[in-house]
């Protein structure tokens, strides 16, 4: 789950990394008491859960005299379709140079990867493509709580030594907050010292509980509902509902829909050991999406009991057509139950998907 900018900045500030003086406001009036502290010129940043908010008009410059009006304007805007409920009002920094610092989980080495470049402030993906030599990398040992000084020297090169402690502190944040990504871009030098002008933290979804989060804000309402039942659910834009067991098989079913010229409305992985009640909830959830015209159920596994699955599909009693491919224990019983009720059952995933694409067309 991605933290909002002000949350990420609070976390790194607590870890001892300087951030610009800032105040979170929920209405333009809340800005008034802070105008003195913010100075002649400051920045208003919409706290919305989307990327690229600057280009979408979510960041505005303001001053002592026009600050309230500009804040009102920003509260009235929609950024990529999302209303602005919170604004971070932040002091402007006297920037001398911009750097980039990030710590991620590296799949190849299975360890934390720290990236630093003196060409900060710009899009790191562009730097990686055009000047890969400008990005310095080290791989840390996850069994150590600290990064050894030689690694920090390697990262810094000729950059100011005062950035070193920021790297150490961000690494501690990365470990303590179960982060998948801890990024400061830009990390800036000013006459008053080093500051994190922007910060990004993504917390591991599997660690939200121990990090004190009760809900995953990255999920839509229906995705949250699905999570309560233990399903993995992703909303898409097509017309064919997809229920499978296992992430790979469900993804593969989606792909096959595309292969045969259809479009999937969602991805629902019911997980292992699908009992009738779980299947019923899954079918109802997918059936509740208005754009779904037909549902493909593709369940495969040695331990999936087909009669349980059949019971769940029948109990869901949704208006849309449900086309089923089932393989596993008690296959004959499951098939008998479904065909008695007039459900269509086909033997392979190619066949069910082809049929569903025809029905949806």
């Amino acid at each position, binding site marked *: 789950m991605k933290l909002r900018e002000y949350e990420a900045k609070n976390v790194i500030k607590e870890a001892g990394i300087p951030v610009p003086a800032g105040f979170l406001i929920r209405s333009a009036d809340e800005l008034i008491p802070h105008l003195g502290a913010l100075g002649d010129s400051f920045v208003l940043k919409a706290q919305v859960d989307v990327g690229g908010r600057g280009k979408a008009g979510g960041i505005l410059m303001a001053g002592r005299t026009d600050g309230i009006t500009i804040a009102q304007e920003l509260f009235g805007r929609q950024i990529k379709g999302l209303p602005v409920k919170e604004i971070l009002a932040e002091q402007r920094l006297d920037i001398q140079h911009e750097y980039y610092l990030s710590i991620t989980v590296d799949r190849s080495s299975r360890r934390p990867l720290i990236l630093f470049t003196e060409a900060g402030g710009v899009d790191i993906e562009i730097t990686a493509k055009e000047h890969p030599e400008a990005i310095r990398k080290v791989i840390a040992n996850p069994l150590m709580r600290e990064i050894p000084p030689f690694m920090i020297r390697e990262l810094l090169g000729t950059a100011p030594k005062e950035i070193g402690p920021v790297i150490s502190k961000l690494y501690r944040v990365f470990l303590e907050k179960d982060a998948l990504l801890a990024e400061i871009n830009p990390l800036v030098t000013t006459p008053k010292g080093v500051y994190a002008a922007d910060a990004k933290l993504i917390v591991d979804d599997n660690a939200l509980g121990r990090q004190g989060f009760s809900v995953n804000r990255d999920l839509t309402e229906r995705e949250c509902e699905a999570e309560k039942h233990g399903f993995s659910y992703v909303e898409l834009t097509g017309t064919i509902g997809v229920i499978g067991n296992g992430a*790979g098989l469900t993804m593969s079913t989606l792909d096959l829909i595309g292969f045969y010229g259809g479009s*999937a409305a969602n*991805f629902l992985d019911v997980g292992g050991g699908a009992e009738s009640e779980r299947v019923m909830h899954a079918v109802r959830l997918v059936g509740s999406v208005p754009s779904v015209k037909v549902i493909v159920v593709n369940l495969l596994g040695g331990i999936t009991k087909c009669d349980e699955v059949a019971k769940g599909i029948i109990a869901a009693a949704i208006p849309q057509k449900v086309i089923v491919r089932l393989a596993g224990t008690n296959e004959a019983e499951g098939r008998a139950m479904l065909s008695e009720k007039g459900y269509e059952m086909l033997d392979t995933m190619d066949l069910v998907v082809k049929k569903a694409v025809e029905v949806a067309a």
Partner: protein
Amino acid sequence: MIYGDKKTGVLVQGATGKQGEFHIGLMNAYAQQVGGRGVVAGVTPGKGGKEVHGVPVYNTVKEAMRDHDISAGVIFVPAAAAADSIMEEATAGIQTIVAITEHIPVHDTMKAIAYAEMEGCCVIGPNCPGLLSPGELKMGIMPSGLFLPGNVGVISRSGTLTYEVVDELTRAGIGQSTVVGIGGDPVIGQTFVDVLERFGNDPQTKAVVLIGEVGGNLEEEGAKSTDLPIVSYIAGISAPPDKRMGHAGAIVEGGEGDARSKIARLKKMGVPVASRPSEIPQIVRNLFRDHC
């Protein structure tokens, strides 16, 4: 065979849990069928002295190792304790550790794998179905009824999709040497590179099916590392960016790891890529015709 055979003695952690108990039964039914040793001991702290399907349960891995010849372990314990179980097995000297558990926080996995590496043992998973060498050894939860002994290796990040592909291969009369589910998490122990290295040293394996999905570039790293003829299939061509597709590791991030570019890179290396699972058997046949 890679990772083990009939003679491998297996330990199960989380033996008295619902999953552990159920799968000890299935693993030992398979061991009996093929004449293997199967699961010889279980471990659940506080449940020492019990038995599960006739298998003795111990409080610690160390105690189980004192009484039995064990070289591999399968972990079914809940996510919060699974990393600890990996480290306990590594410390006790178990060589191959299969972690079935899903939802382990990535930082725990990173530590446990770094620790196991230090102790010189290998971890398969987490969030994986384990492995099966037909006619020899089953460690994990794969449905053994679908398998056929033969000389095609299969490596996959998925569970049920692996069964789908194995089913297709078996129906086409193409047997498997070993099928390994390496897991759907972003950080896993054995990657495509590691398993391919084992297949490269395995005289039984003549070709490998590599089943990947969106996220990262471990598939390409694997394909680059081997001389074996390989066929690939990549799931998730329809996956939208920045959405986790069921597996914690199946996510297109920062424009990286999407299926189309993965497939393009594999094809550039000369790896045939199936556009759907049902095409895999024919491509494998073509490989055998061209290489063997």
